């Protein structure tokens, strides 16, 4: 078996050098990624980093300016119809009809997949049961909670039993319980053999679900690794030190051997904890040099921390921001 053939069989999604510009803004600047069949890849990045654009290209909704991609063995530019038959997409905006009931939505989409009336009804019922929506099946979607709407959206994406699923920020804006419920659904899909590419702004989500994480920023891949390796790089927990005197900051950086990088907050120093003893060592070092620490806080790493770490290494990339839209 030649290499190319076996590659096509083992990778459900593969993209090479994707470039897309809107006007003069280069949204994607050469994205490479592969998703092995049956695995989940998390595309992690802040707003405006190109996550949605990547998904739209891979789902044939947008044409790349350069580069190529194949999904399910079909070329997204030349075999769009075949790609669309293979995939399901849950876009960032809800893609269900608010004025119809949950059941009516699923029956409509099943009908438009040409399942036949009886089969369409069966399929809608199966999905309502599977996604825990049977109780709300007869209610208009407008009355659904955010979590229910996302589940219905996901159910709608599963009408055709796709082998490959794209989820664009599936849990953004959900409360913790709805998020956990949706994670359980995603794990189920993964266990049943579905290949999934999901985008997220949350490191924790990537850590919970993904086999592999691709971090993008400014339209470029800045990291492509397993969640464990990424977290090792960032540090499991973040130690935030608030110094008593702001002017000690450069000295503290030197003592601790930190690269001079943008830091959150005035007088604050953030570093990843490598091991349980790291906190004591750090405080000892500062104490030894006569740098008083006013307050110490510990928190779990956020996407910002990933970027502080990754961009501190490459230094040139501007500081990303989370929050807002896009």
């Amino acid at each position, binding site marked *: 078996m030649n290499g190319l053939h076996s590659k096509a069989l083992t990778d459900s999604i593969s993209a090479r050098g994707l470039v897309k510009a809107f006007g003069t803004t280069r949204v994607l600047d050469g994205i490479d990624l592969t998703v092995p069949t049956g695995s989940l890849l998390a595309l992690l990045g802040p707003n405006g980093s190109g996550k949605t654009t990547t998904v739209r290209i891979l*789902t*044939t*909704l*947008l*044409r790349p300016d350069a580069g190529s991609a194949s999904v399910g063995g079909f070329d997204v530019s030349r075999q769009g*119809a075949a790609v*669309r*038959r293979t*995939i*399901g*997409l849950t*876009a*960032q*905006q*809800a*893609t*269900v*009809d608010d*004025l*119809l009931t949950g059941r*009516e939505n699923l029956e*409509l*989409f099943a*009908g*438009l*997949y*040409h399942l036949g009336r009886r089969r369409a009804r069966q399929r809608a019922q199966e999905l309502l049961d599977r996604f825990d929506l049977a109780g709300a099946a007869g209610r*208009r979607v407008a009355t659904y909670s955010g979590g229910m709407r996302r589940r219905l959206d996901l159910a*709608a994406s599963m009408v055709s039993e796709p082998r490959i699923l794209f989820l664009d920020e599936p849990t953004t804006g959900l409360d913790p319980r709805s998020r956990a419920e949706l994670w359980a659904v995603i794990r189920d899909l993964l266990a049943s053999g579905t290949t999934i590419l999901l985008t997220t702004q949350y490191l924790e989500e990537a850590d919970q679900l993904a086999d592999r994480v691709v971090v993008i920023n400014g339209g470029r891949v800045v990291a492509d690794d397993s969640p464990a390796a990424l977290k090792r790089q960032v540090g499991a927990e973040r130690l935030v030190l608030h110094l008593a005197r702001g002017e000690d900051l450069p000295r503290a950086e030197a003592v601790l051997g930190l690269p001079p990088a943008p830091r959150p907050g005035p007088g604050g120093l953030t570093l990843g904890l490598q091991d349980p003893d790291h906190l004591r060592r750090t405080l000892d070092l500062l104490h030894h040099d006569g740098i008083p620490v006013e307050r110490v806080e510990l928190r779990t790493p956020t996407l910002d921390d990933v970027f502080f770490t990754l961009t501190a290494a490459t230094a040139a990339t501007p500081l990303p921001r989370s929050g807002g839209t896009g």
Partner: protein
Amino acid sequence: MSTALTAGGDLYRLVGRNLRRETRILDGLIVNTALPVIIMVLFVYVFGGAITTGSSGLAYIDFVVPAVLLMSGGYGAALTAVNIAEDMTGGMIDRFRTLPIAAWAVPAGHVLASVIRNVMACGFALLAAIVLGFRPDASLTDWAWVLVVLVGYVLALSSVAVLWGLLVRSAQAAGAFSFVVLFLPYLSDGVVPAETMPGALREFAYHQPVTPIVATLRSLLLDQPLGTSGWVAAAWLGGTVVLSVPLAAHLFRRRTSS
């Protein structure tokens, strides 16, 4: 053959979806049922007494019914612009695009649903007119032609509305089209005789599409002489449909690719 059948099925489902939506929006229900009746009552009772019908010699109710029929169907048809703009700006269009359906089925579904709804609205207006004393003098063939004219009018307006809805890219701006459509009958020979209007307005009234369409309906419903109005109306409606349908299909394809 089978692809034509499949596309027909898709269209049927999309029309069903659009009609179902319409029954669940209070606005939609009012526009399609109460509004035609209200307009009819308004013109016959409120304005009717004060308006002369000029040289036509018709009772005002007979004079105004054709224009009210067009208003009844036209307003709802114009709102098709809002319906398609909502699909395009919301997430629905992404869902439709990932489905294995023909691209034209989505705009066509909106146009067809609009024709069904708004010709029904014309029916409500006509019933109200008959209750209020409108006594048409039309043969079965005449009625069939009345239906053709009303379907043509609603179809033409709905196609232009879809075109407009695709052009403006926002539901609010799409709503502006209904104003144009609502006012066009006032500036025709349909509500007051155009011969009573000042010069420039009169010329506009004589040369805009609503006047020959009203004249055609009058001729069919009231056994009035038709003259060339039938041909002029057919040219307006046919021309509009022939131009706007392919343009809308082209615009929809452009909006949904790239």
